């Protein structure tokens, strides 16, 4: 670091540094977040501990302030960019060292829609929370979802749409799953600005997720319920 008034991250103890990474994430300071992550790793922190206590917790705070109208989309995107940079450092280490996996999600924006900001945030936060995420990108016809389900055998199918004109396509996907007798094999989570609980219920999704933080919490809760149900039926 340079400049008289800049903070030397190495001078901070673990607790202060973790706090500082939260602040740097909040401010979207990519380089500082990467530096903080590397310092914690250098001090012997397990990659999973850095991920959850520094990055995920930092983004959780960003998510709360976004929901409360304190932060707006540009700030959240900058924070996400910073988290992404930190995750890039951690990802190979997490694979090496192993970390608790909560399940697998296939996620994509539906056919006719190219909007992916929310979908990308959900994917990143789900990965941070311990889910394996297969991102299908944008403009996905039902065939692409089915193919991905077949290939990756996920626990969760996530669909996103920003347009009122494209959100009904989620029902096409869910109805196809029903026709094939596959609907109950997966949790289906849906999200996107024009959606609401009522719509999610009407099309037969398991839940509507209003933002990335809610998506993570909902996925964890529904996965836990699913495990309990399976255990009870065993």
């Amino acid at each position, binding site marked *: 670091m340079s400049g008289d008034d800049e903070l030397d991250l190495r001078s901070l103890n673990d607790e202060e540094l973790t706090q500082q990474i939260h602040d740097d994430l909040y401010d*979207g300071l990519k380089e500082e977040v990467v530096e903080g992550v590397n310092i914690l790793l250098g001090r012997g922190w397990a990659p999973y501990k850095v991920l959850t206590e520094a990055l995920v917790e930092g983004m959780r705070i960003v998510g709360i302030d976004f929901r409360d109208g304190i932060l707006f*989309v*540009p700030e959240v995107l900058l924070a996400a*960019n910073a988290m992404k940079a930190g995750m890039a450092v951690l990802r190979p280490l997490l694979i090496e060292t192993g970390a608790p996996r909560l399940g697998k999600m296939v996620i994509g924006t539906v056919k006719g829609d190219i909007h992916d900001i929310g979908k990308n945030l959900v994917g990143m936060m789900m990965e941070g929370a311990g889910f394996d995420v297969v991102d299908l990108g944008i403009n996905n016809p039902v065939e692409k979802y089915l193919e991905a389900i077949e290939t990756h055998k996920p626990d969760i199918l996530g669909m996103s749409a*920003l347009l*009122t*004109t494209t959100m009904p396509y989620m029902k096409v996907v869910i109805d196809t799953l029903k026709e094939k007798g596959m609907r109950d094999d997966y949790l289906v989570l849906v999200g996107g600005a*024009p*959606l609401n609980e009522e*719509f999610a219920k009407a099309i037969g999704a398991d839940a509507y997720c209003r933002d990335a933080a809610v998506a993570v919490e909902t996925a964890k809760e529904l996965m836990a319920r699913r495990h309990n149900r399976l255990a009870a039926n065993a």
Partner: protein
Amino acid sequence: MDDMDNRDAAFPELPPGEDFAFTRGRGDVLLIACGALAREIVALIEANRWRAFDVQCLPAIWHNTPSRIPEAVRRLIRDNKSRYRSIFVLYGDCGTGGLLDKVLAEEGVERIAGPHCYSFLTGNERFDKTAEEDLTTFFLTDYLARHFDKLIWEGLGIAAHPELLPLYFGNYTKLVYLAQTRDPALEAKAREAAARLGLAYEYRFTGYGELGLALTARA
């Protein structure tokens, strides 16, 4: 496509009457509209010397937070129902996911047909026809071309953080300027906006499209 059918032929643009300027608070048909359409609505009222209409607008910036629109429209309807012969809403669904239509059905008020202003300004049928080829198109109207810097370049944080540009516009390939008026200065702004966003540029003159037709039917 350089120039679309001029749908304004249904109501020829009259020269503005010297003695007619729109005045709020008159008229017995209330138009509840998105602020992004205010200028166009007033232009139509004045060009056609319509005396039937009064206009109340909600903030155009709610385009980014459409969940605020339905209940705000409901409030305006309830506050004004007894004072007007009728009320007509100039919003598309506009990202409310059907909630605006639910409110309007409950309040017994109609709105202009179409999912959003890009569609009804173009003409809903025509907009649908090009939907597939326009999948990666970012649209500007006169309003958005005029306020591009404030609403998009600065509003989305791109001016301060150019690294956000690909996150917002990485999936787009083309900017189409849906022009309500023939204004070379606005066209230049739209063309420049496309260049700044790194998108191909296309100009389509729409006129006031179904906005004009809907008002003609209620004047």
